[in-house]
């Protein structure tokens, strides 16, 4: 049974080929069904593989790819608990999004092309998670990047879409460069690119803290920051929202962007050997989480809020990796895939209903019009905000606890994490209230046309809603009476890394309870803040500013602390994050990316100067080259 794991990625590949080659001959119906069925087949196979996996990792080599001397690379697949979880999550979420897409893209004229790209993406993603060597992983890595690029620019008629595709491409190249270099170094040092061999040899080859292993890890992590949109390479993700919304859900929220987390977790042994690299990962993760969350609070585009939110949540996952809580990272990766896909799909449903209106300021009161979307979106919002009992709560709490209790963690990480949690609750409920509550702020004419989406779209929403609710229960923490079976399930994968790491002291259950309570409380504060600001008090923060003469009256108010918080902390943060977004993001980072591209072009143009079309110039270059070589020779020999 397990020897059929290679079929898991092959099914979507078949779908891609048929849709790509004969897409026009198939009807829309045919393309859609084909796209969904192939991914569904992968999902079933992944589930079966997970069931049959049992204890140990299973390797299967389909064929040799490159054999050169002692060096070999094969089309080899590795099924262990980690890749099983990833494969099931990826294929499952992908299947739901394929189904959703049949509804969302129904009007698009390039329907079959869309499904071909989507299938190709799933193929590469599954290759990425199932590969048993760095090179095959790299192939998947490049492949998903290519599909992401194609799908961001899917509506290339829009200039912004084409530019966004370009930006994603350039930024990712920088990350991929680091990744490629890291793989080269690994190969140079270990003489192999197979995961089992490399990870088995690593502890003997390096003492913890070795410079080379730190360099390797940092290079790999550079790759991860590109793909998973972390500081400083996160800038492409918000722009990537130019693509169709299901694409944002699948690629830019649930699966591809988490590839960096998966890769770091996969290389846990290497990272465990380098405390420095782990620290860098943790700091970057924590910083990104907080930074992106503040920026999410000031966006007005519904998808951009979610995009910054994704960056922030990915930051959480890296924070977990950085404090060596790899299973917590993967756990959050999985639950995040459920609720973030749901959020995006819900947003898509809203956008679909409002005929491609994405601005929150033109929404409101959608509760009445889109009941199913409203309900599921609410579940997802609660989940991501960390409402006790829901998926997001469990996984996020696991991360927060690890960041506090792990010997590699610290109070600072925990504080940042909790602050982020508060901000998350704030911006998510802001979004939720602005979109679904209050008076509708769209035109009368639109109001008559607003309608709930078809079954093909609401169906996946409901399923994902259920998953966002119960998905976390498999990792229910011990302190709340659960067994945290998820962590146990993944334990064999990370056992080798665990051995290399220092063991932490046992904290009292009371501490854990206290921290949990605190984080829930802060999330609650965020919720209240959003509630006050966007639902009860006023519909927009601008109004609040007008009330400045009445500050005294508000101070007397029993919400004094709340308002103080607004004035002293929130307003600077909001202002600061708006400033950061405007200047830092657009000027510095965008500027440097664009500047780099311009610099390269100018370099090329300057270099083309001698190629001015005049033969005598060509001959002069040739002769100059020869003269220089001979002069050098004479210099060396005499």
């Amino acid at each position: 049974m397990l020897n059929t794991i290679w079929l898991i990625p092959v099914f979507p590949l078949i779908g891609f080929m048929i849709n790509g080659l004969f897409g026009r001959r198939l009807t829309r119906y045919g393309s859609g069904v084909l796209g969904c069925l192939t991914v569904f087949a992968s999902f079933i196979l992944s589930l079966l593989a997970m069931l049959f996996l049992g204890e140990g990792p299973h390797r299967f080599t389909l064929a040799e790819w490159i054999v050169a001397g002692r060096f070999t690379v094969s089309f080899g697949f590795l099924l262990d608990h980690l890749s099983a979880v990833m494969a099931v999550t990826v294929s499952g979420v992908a299947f739901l999004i394929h189904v959703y897409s049949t509804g969302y893209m129904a009007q698009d004229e390039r329907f079959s092309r869309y499904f071909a790209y989507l299938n190709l993406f799933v193929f590469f993603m599954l290759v990425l998670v199932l590969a048993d060597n760095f090179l095959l992983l790299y192939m998947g890595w490049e492949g998903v990047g290519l599909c992401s690029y194609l799908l961001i620019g899917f509506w290339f008629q829009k200039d912004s879409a084409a530019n966004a595709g370009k930006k994603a491409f350039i930024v990712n190249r920088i990350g991929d460069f680091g990744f490629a270099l890291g793989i080269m170094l690994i190969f140079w040092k270990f003489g192999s690119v197979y995961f089992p061999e490399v990870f088995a040899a690593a502890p003997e080859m390096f003492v913890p803290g070795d410079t080379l292993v730190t360099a390797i890890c940092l290079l790999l992590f550079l790759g991860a920051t590109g793909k998973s949109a972390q500081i400083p390479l996160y800038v492409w993700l918000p722009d990537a929202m130019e693509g169709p919304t299901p694409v944002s859900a699948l690629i830019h929220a649930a699966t591809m962007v988490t590839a960096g987390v998966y890769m770091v977790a996969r290389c846990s042994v290497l990272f465990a050997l380098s405390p420095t690299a782990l620290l860098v990962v943790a700091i970057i993760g924590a910083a990104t989480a907080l930074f992106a969350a503040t920026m999410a609070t000031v966006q007005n585009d519904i998808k951009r809020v979610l995009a910054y939110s994704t960056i922030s949540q990915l930051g959480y996952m890296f924070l977990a990796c950085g404090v060596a809580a790899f299973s917590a990272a993967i756990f959050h990766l999985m639950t995040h895939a459920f609720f973030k896909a749901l959020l995006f799909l819900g947003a898509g449903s809203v956008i679909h209903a409002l005929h491609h209106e994405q601005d929150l300021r033109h929404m409101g009161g959608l509760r009445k019009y889109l009941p199913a979307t409203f309900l599921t979106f609410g579940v997802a919002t609660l989940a991501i905000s960390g409402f006790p009992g829901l998926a997001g709560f469990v996984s996020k709490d696991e991360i927060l606890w690890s960041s506090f209790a792990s010997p590699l963690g610290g109070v600072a990480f925990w504080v940042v994490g909790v602050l982020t949690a508060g901000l998350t609750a704030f911006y998510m409920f802001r979004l939720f209230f602005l979109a679904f509550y209050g008076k509708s702020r769209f035109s009368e004419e639109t109001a008559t046309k607003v309608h709930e989406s078809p079954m093909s779209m609401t169906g996946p929403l409901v399923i994902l809603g259920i998953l966002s609710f119960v998905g976390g229960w498999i990792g229910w923490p011990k302190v709340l009476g659960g067994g945290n079976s998820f962590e146990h399930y993944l334990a064999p994968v990370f056992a080798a890394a665990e051995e290399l790491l220092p063991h932490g002291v046992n904290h009292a259950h009371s501490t854990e309870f206290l921290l949990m309570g605190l984080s829930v409380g802060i999330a609650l504060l965020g919720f209240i803040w959003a509630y006050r600001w966007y639902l009860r008090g006023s519909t927009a923060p601008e109004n609040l500013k007008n009330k400045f003469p009445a500050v005294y009256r508000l101070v007397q108010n029993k919400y004094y602390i709340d308002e103080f918080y607004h004035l002293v902390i929130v307003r600077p943060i909001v202002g600061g994050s708006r400033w950061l977004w405007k200047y830092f993001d657009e000027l510095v980072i965008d500027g440097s990316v664009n500047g780099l591209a311009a610099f390269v072009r100018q370099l090329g143009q300057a270099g083309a100067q001698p190629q001015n079309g005049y033969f005598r110039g060509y001959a002069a270059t040739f002769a100059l080259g020869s003269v220089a070589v001979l002069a050098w020779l004479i210099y060396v020999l005499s």
Partner: protein
Amino acid sequence: MIPLSHYLLVSAVLFGLGTVGVLISRNLITILMSVELMLNAANLALISFARWHADPGAHVFVFIIFVVAAAEAAVGLSLVIAIFRRKNTVDVDELNILKG
């Protein structure tokens, strides 16, 4: 007996002058002749080395180079004619559509 170095010196001078000719003249035909000059410089070097090594093999090589020079000249001059027909000039600086 004249030392080998003298011949080589002449050969070097002719080769350098050929290069100069290629670099500075604008007339296609003069450039072709400068290339001929370079080939002749190589011929002289070969012949003098042949004398030095007492090996007549290089003489045959020089004969073959004559034929190569003839073929090059024929093709080069045909190109000159083709260019003259299109552009009514043999100025090499007029050939600058392709660049960049």
